[in-house]
């Protein structure tokens, strides 16, 4: 038996990293899973980028943002070499080699084929849009059902914007996400997934306190659902997996209290559901590519 001053650390094997990269919703913690059917282990690997929003994914120059490239390099999805051909959208990096500054092109690693990368982004962009819409007392039409939202308090609406008018504004805000995903997909990162936005809090007062501005719950939900709707469409178009646990963590489209960590985030139970969904889609992808 080990004494209190000794520890016992048994090596039990390797685990496949499931990398979550992006805003604070990528902070799922280091969770370890075992697939009993295949006796393989999975460990989540969160890589948070502070204040990560759509505009960080791609710059005005059309190149992938440096914070995301760095995160993907640190987690072995991307690598650089003088031998690589330049890849559109991936800016070469400069490295010292034998005292000489050389350009190295960035490309997707072979290792990345064997592990999933889940991008969490967009929630900050929803906040930006909410600030504008709430300030203007805007409601808008959406081309999908929003059952359950009628249970949320109504608010004083100045104008209801048709979907045709709203869409360009929202796409302008989140479009860089799609352009970034496209660059990575075309560069060969097939194991990339985009995570859906979580259902927001139902507590208007807490939201106002944390965010520093007010936006009614009905508006928060509608906008979040719209962004997820667009995420799903874009992912289908780009052949990128979409990790969406909305139906599991909501009832009638409203957040279930048992999944709430704080005003903004979902808790570990939700993270476990997310990892299960990643595992399901990643396994299917591996099978298809085998």
């Amino acid at each position: 038996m080990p004494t209190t001053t000794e520890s016992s650390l048994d090596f039990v094997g390797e685990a496949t990293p499931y990398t979550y990269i992006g805003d604070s919703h990528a902070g799922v913690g280091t969770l370890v899973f075992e697939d009993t059917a295949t006796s393989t282990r999975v460990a989540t690997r969160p890589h948070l980028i502070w204040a990560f929003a759509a505009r960080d994914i791609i710059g005005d120059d059309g190149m992938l943002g440096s914070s995301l490239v760095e995160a993907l390099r640190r987690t072995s999805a991307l690598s650089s070499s003088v031998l690589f051909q330049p890849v559109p959208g991936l800016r070469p990096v400069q490295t010292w080699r034998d005292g000489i500054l050389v350009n190295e092109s960035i490309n997707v690693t072979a290792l990345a084929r064997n592990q999933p990368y889940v991008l969490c982004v967009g929630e900050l962009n929803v906040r930006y849009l909410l600030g504008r819409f709430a300030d203007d007392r805007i409601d808008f039409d959406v081309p999908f059902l929003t059952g359950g939202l009628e249970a949320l308090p109504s608010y004083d609406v100045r104008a209801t914007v048709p979907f045709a008018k709203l869409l360009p504004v929202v796409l302008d805000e989140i479009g860089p996400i799609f352009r970034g995903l496209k660059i990575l997909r075309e560069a060969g990162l097939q194991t990339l997934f985009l995570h859906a936005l979580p259902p927001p809090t139902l507590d208007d007062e807490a939201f106002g306190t944390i965010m520093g501005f007010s936006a009614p719950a009905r508006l928060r939900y509608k906008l979040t659902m719209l962004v997820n709707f667009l995420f799903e469409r874009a992912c289908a178009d780009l052949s990128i997996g979409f990790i969406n646990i909305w139906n599991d963590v909501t009832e009638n489209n409203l957040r279930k209290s048992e999944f709430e960590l704080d005003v903004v985030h979902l808790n570990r139970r939700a993270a476990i559901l997310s990892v299960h969904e990643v595992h399901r889609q990643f396994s299917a992808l591996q099978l298809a590519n085998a």
Partner: protein
Amino acid sequence: MSQFPYDHRPDYALWKRNVQGVPSTALDPSAPVRFMIDKEMRIASGGSCFARHIAVNLKKQGFNYFCTEPGAEYSANFGNVYTTLQLLQLFQRAYGEFKPAEIAWRRGDRFVDPLRPRVFEAGFPTPDAVAKATETHLAAVRRLFEELDVFVFTLGLTEGFCSRIDGTAFPAAPGKDVGEFDESRYEFRNLGVSENVEYLDAFLHGLRHVNPKARVILTVSPVPLVATMEERSVIQSTVYSKSVLRVCADEILRMHDFVDYFWSYEIITATYNTDRYFELDRRSVDERGVAHVMRSFFRHFAGIETEQTTTAQADPCDEDVLNALIRKASGS
């Protein structure tokens, strides 16, 4: 008994009767018009981007929208004419009084006309092909000016970029995706009241010279500047630009009785409607705003009441349209 000059002013001159208590959608900042239009007249239009709404609605209401080039967005293929200097130079080019030094700008491996870079998106294979297309275009512009009855012109901007070599006023600065910006060749100009009055007056003299029956309706675009080169907020520059153009229109009205003014700027931007008629970008005028503007235009200049106006837009609730928009946002 002494008379007070404001005692017998008409309703439109009095805030209490023209504005106070009138529903926002019924506000009508009008004035007696100098002439009317009818469906027999050849009505042409041009100007900044807001002019598009006027062209669309004139056609929609069955007016004889005069167009001398097939497929043109306006009455000829001149694209957006933002400044009075551009308008004057368009006229001068049409009559051989001005020949810009630059005839073509590069866009990728193609060439475009620097004075209407967005008109032919595909561009032309050679500068010669641009020059040939310009010749055809200017012939159509001549015919337009000589045969129109009424020209509706929307004053848009005071800011713009000009050639340092010969003063050519371009509709857009080179360098974004067309042409190359070179500070030694191009300069920023922000036209003042006297310059605008001078250029517009010169155009009107030319127009009446080639077409003595021509009449003109001026209006000021309510669409704010998308960007400014002045070292100040784009809001300040918008107010400056629109104020200058509004003053210019009034100065011109005092000089020429064949020119009238239409108040689209007032309908959209007067304080009681600023919160009502702009899109989410706080810049584009929405359908209701355009409808209000055109309702007032047709009521006063044509004597007809209209309800339905504008704008044929692709409906993103349609799956194909939605997917195309998302694909475009993805850069595909």
